[in-house]
Structures are given as C-alpha cells and as structure tokens.
C-alpha cells in the first residue's frame, strides 16, 4: 500500500493523500498525544504534520519511508511547539498521574485485569521523561527499526538501543509504582 500510495501522492493524486491520511492518522495522533501528554495539542500537531505532507507531496523521494517521514515531522512539530510553550508558562502541562490518558471501552473479550493493565501502561508511559518516552513510542509501540528511530531522533542506532533499554527499565519501575499506589487505595 505504502509504495503505491507514495507514487500517486508524488504525482499529486488527492485520493492517495486520503489513503495515507486514513492509514497513518491514528498512529500519528497516538504518538503525538503520548509525546505531548495533551490530546488538544496533539490534535493541532496532527494538522501541522499532514499539512506538511500535503505541501511536500511532490518533493518526496521515490524511496521515502512514509512512516519515518511522518514521525520525523510530527516529532519536530512537537519540539517546535514545546519551545514556544516554554515562553508561556500557562500552557505547560502539569506533571500528574491524573493526566488525560488514551482510553477505549473494554472489549467484550478483554478481562478486567487486562483493561487495568492497559490503563496502567498508558499512565506509566506518560510518566516517563520525554527522551525515554519518544524512543519507546517509536520502537516499541510504532515498530520502527533502531536505525529508523535513530534517524528521527538524530542519534546513532547504538545510542537508540541504549536509550530503549533504559526506557524499558524506567517503564517497569513506573508500572510497579502505579500498582503499589492502586493497592494502597
């Protein structure tokens, strides 16, 4: 799908853009929500990302990896937004276990424990420092290779592997912390 849609997008085919938008939008939104920890900010950044794709449609190289391209632009959009947000303290997100987490209704075949674990995982991801969060999102959630993630993050593949190892360790620690907090209630 990706290669064919890319070719048509480069030719300026709007239906190709629609197909790519439909396919990647949820992933880019989820990535930005967990990165920005704010669904409203994520929504605005999704627009920036896909408008950038539309503007650059004809300039994409034939061997462009769309997922990597989109996550690169999305991450840069977030970093640019964060720089401006630092100037406006009122827009800074308060670090709190009660941040809005991505939620969905429990599926009929999903146990209560599995649903609770999923919620705990979301809270643990949001509680990570940004550097740990972004590498985890790119590799462990979105399935990008270490090499692709390294290009997006601007580091070497080895540095990406190390960051990922540390991020997984911190994630386990956060999940344990949340489990203990739940038991105390």
């Amino acid at each position, binding site marked *: 799908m990706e290669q064919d849609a890319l070719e048509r997008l480069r030719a*300026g085919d*709007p239906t190709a*853009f*629609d197909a790519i*938008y439909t396919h990647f*939008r*949820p992933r880019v*939104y*989820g990535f930005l*929500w*967990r990165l920005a920890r704010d669904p409203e900010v994520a*929504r605005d950044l*999704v*627009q920036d990302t*896909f*408008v950038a*794709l*539309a*503007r650059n*449609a*004809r*300039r994409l190289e034939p061997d462009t990896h769309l997922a990597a391209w989109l996550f690169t632009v999305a991450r840069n959009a977030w970093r640019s937004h964060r720089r401006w947000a630092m100037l406006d303290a009122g827009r800074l997100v308060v670090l709190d276990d009660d941040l809005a*987490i*991505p*939620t*969905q209704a429990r599926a009929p075949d999903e146990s209560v424990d599995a649903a609770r674990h*999923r919620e705990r*995982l*979301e809270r643990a*991801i949001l509680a990570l420092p940004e550097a740990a969060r972004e590498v*985890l999102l790119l*590799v*462990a*959630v979105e*399935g990008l290779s*270490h090499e692709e993630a390294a290009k997006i993050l601007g580091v070497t593949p080895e540095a990406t592997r190390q960051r*990922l190892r540390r991020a997984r360790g911190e994630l386990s620690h956060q999940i344990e912390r949340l489990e203990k907090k739940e038991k105390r209630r």
Partner: protein
Amino acid sequence: MTERLIVTEVDLDAAATERIRRRAAMVIGTPEPSTATERLVPLGAFLFAVCYLVWAAERAQLFIFMVST
C-alpha cells in the same frame, strides 16, 4: 526482535478528522510561502555586494591615481 507494547488505539473525532483533511487538500503540492525574512535576506546580500563593489572600485581608482603620480 524488540518486544512490542500494545497500547490503546486512539483517533481524532470525525469533525477534526474532516477539518484537517480539507485543510491539507487545499495545499497539496503547494510549497510553503516564503517568510519576510526569506525574501529580505537575498535582497540585503545583493545590496551589500553592490555597496562593496562601489567601495572597491573607488579604492582601486585612488590606488591607480597615487601610483601614476
């Protein structure tokens, strides 16, 4: 193989989805408009080059005059 994390699937609401789609459709293939800075920098560089050439020409004339006298 990196162990994958299974996270909650999320998506924008229908109104936001359509709004963004329409906004992007308006600009497909249209490059980003240049900013004022991007337009002024080449102009500034050109004016500087002209002033430098005039100054250099004047200095060259003065040198030639001094050498010939």
